[in-house]
């Protein structure tokens, strides 16, 4: 469960003045639900998700993740969260197995438990062929699978995906999308950010449209269609953010 309440992040910037990257964003995600955060470049998606994962501290508002407040109990929040982003890379000189085991230990798991879980994840993600190879020799797809296994080793209740299909080919991207569905089936709370409309349509139970740090519209796809009188999500998105930039 995630409950964001007026979450705000302002970056000080000497030249441009304060940047309101996230501006009083409130939303709620239940377990077994996929919440899609839809926004253009620089809309504030990554910053919002980093706030939820306690990588950044909010300058205003707060959020409760799996019952823990991100401001007061960040370590407990992180123990409940699996965070996957383009900016979370792998240690190139470790093998996939070592990488997964490292994060298992950081999450306080015993080695025997880590071995069992690694085997199970490798089955599910079809990783056995490269499990003992060093990560710097991997293709993008192998890296992404290893990263997913890394985020799942402690079986978190909340999964946060920041543009997880960025730069992947169609087949690998489909595998990721299938995998996010799998998370939902296991009653995990999922937040999924992207600017790809088709992924949102396929995947998300509810959608939040974020622009300039503000959450401009929120609802299920049918609700949004009804509100904006458009069928196409892209049209809805453009209407929501205030028209074409011309």
């Amino acid at each position, binding site marked *: 469960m995630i409950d964001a309440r007026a979450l705000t992040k302002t970056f000080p910037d000497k030249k441009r003045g304060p940047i309101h990257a996230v501006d009083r964003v409130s939303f709620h995600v239940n377990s077994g639900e996929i919440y899609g955060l839809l926004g253009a470049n620089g809309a504030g998606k990554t910053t919002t998700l980093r706030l939820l994962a306690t990588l950044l501290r909010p300058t205003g508002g707060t959020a409760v993740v799996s019952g823990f407040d991100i401001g007061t109990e960040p370590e407990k929040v992180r123990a409940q969260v699996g965070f996957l982003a383009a900016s979370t890379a792998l*240690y190139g000189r470790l093998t996939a197995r070592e990488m997964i085991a490292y994060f298992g230990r950081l999450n306080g798991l015993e080695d025997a438990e880590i071995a069992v879980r690694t085997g199970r994840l490798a089955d599910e993600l079809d990783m056995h062929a490269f499990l003992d190879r060093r990560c710097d020799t991997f293709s993008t797809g192998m890296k992404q699978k290893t*990263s997913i296994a890394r985020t799942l080793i402690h079986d978190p209740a909340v999964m946060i995906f920041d543009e997880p299909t960025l730069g992947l080919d169609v087949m690998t991207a489909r595998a990721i999308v299938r995998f996010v569905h799998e998370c939902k089936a296991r009653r995990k709370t999922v937040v999924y950010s992207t600017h790809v409309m088709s992924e949102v349509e396929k995947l998300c139970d509810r959608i939040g449209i974020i622009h300039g740090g503000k959450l401009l519209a929120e609802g299920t796809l049918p609700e949004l269609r009804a509100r904006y009188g458009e069928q196409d999500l892209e049209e809805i998105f453009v209407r929501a953010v205030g028209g074409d930039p011309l």
Partner: protein
Amino acid sequence: MNFSHIRTVYLKELKDLLRDKRTIRSMIIIPMLVMPALAFGVGSIAKNVYSKARAEIPSVMILGGEDSPAVLAELRRSKKFRVVPTVADWKHSISEKKIRAAVQVPEGFAAGLAAGTTGTVVIHYYEGELKSGFAAAELEAFFRGLRERTVQARLAEHNLPATLMRPFETKRENAAPPDRVGGNALGGIIPYFIIILCFTGAMYPAMDLTAGEKERGTMETLLCSPVARVNIVLGKFCMVLTSALASMTLSLLTMTASFAIGGALWGGGGKEAGVSRLNLPPIDPAGILGVLAMVLPVAVLFSAVIFTVSLFAKSFKEAQSYVGPMMVVVIMPAVVGMLPGIDLNVRLALVPILNLSLVCREMLSGVWHWQYIAIIFGSTCLYAGLALAWAVKMFNREDVIFRA
């Protein structure tokens, strides 16, 4: 603080670093090759140059002295130098190193000797040039001998005892125990090496584990884990410290070994040729332990400072541009500590790095000023603690870790 988390981070960093070929190269192989090369190379070159200079019989010219043929004849008979025919621009010959020196015998020199008057013999040479210096010294020795004999003859002539001109003799004798001599000769250079090796040993991993991780994008991955930031910092920091101490110890061992071998090879010959011995003179063994104990807080200080400074960088290259200039800040006090005549006092005992350099010199020569040792150890521990606290603080600052 959670020691199991610190250990997990530490072991992972250790494994990671040992798999990095660049580490192995810069921290283990290079010091292990460079130090022996330095010891052997410098040793043999110094010995060669010196003994060659010694072996050469210098050519000299005589200026004037035509009215003192006996003196000139004696000069020509000397085996210590070879008199060559005088040319007009003898100065040029000296600066061109065709001859090593020229001696100017004043007019009426021999007559003056007989008559009991005085005169000045001028020796022209190339100041700062080793071989010319040797030639000048030989000429001086020649005229000193002549002067002695003249004095003796004059005294005998007046029936005076030989002791008239030499009422007493002075003589220097070394009263320091042998290990103190060793400590002082090498005491300056060993701390210098230790300080530099410690710094360079910490440098690479400190930059790699901070700026390098940011650059490769693994820092954010690591921060996603529920481990408290302070444990991540301490795990990484311990790795940097290990590397600083390990690389220093390795280099010192290879250095000692190669100096010992080099000393055995060239020490004997060197002594005959007048070179000071190259092998390590005896050092107070307790001094070595003392030095190692004193180096520990300095290693912590270096590791924490380089770690924190590199934390601000976004890439390994950027970190290098910050840490490189710091090397000067470290070398300066280490060099000052090598200078003779600078002794410990309370104020210098508070200056980091310099105080280590000075106290190590003393300890290696078996001198233990406990009050200074306490001040230095205490103050360096304090600086190291502050630097480590700074590292933890900066690691918790998101504008440092997530610099846009």
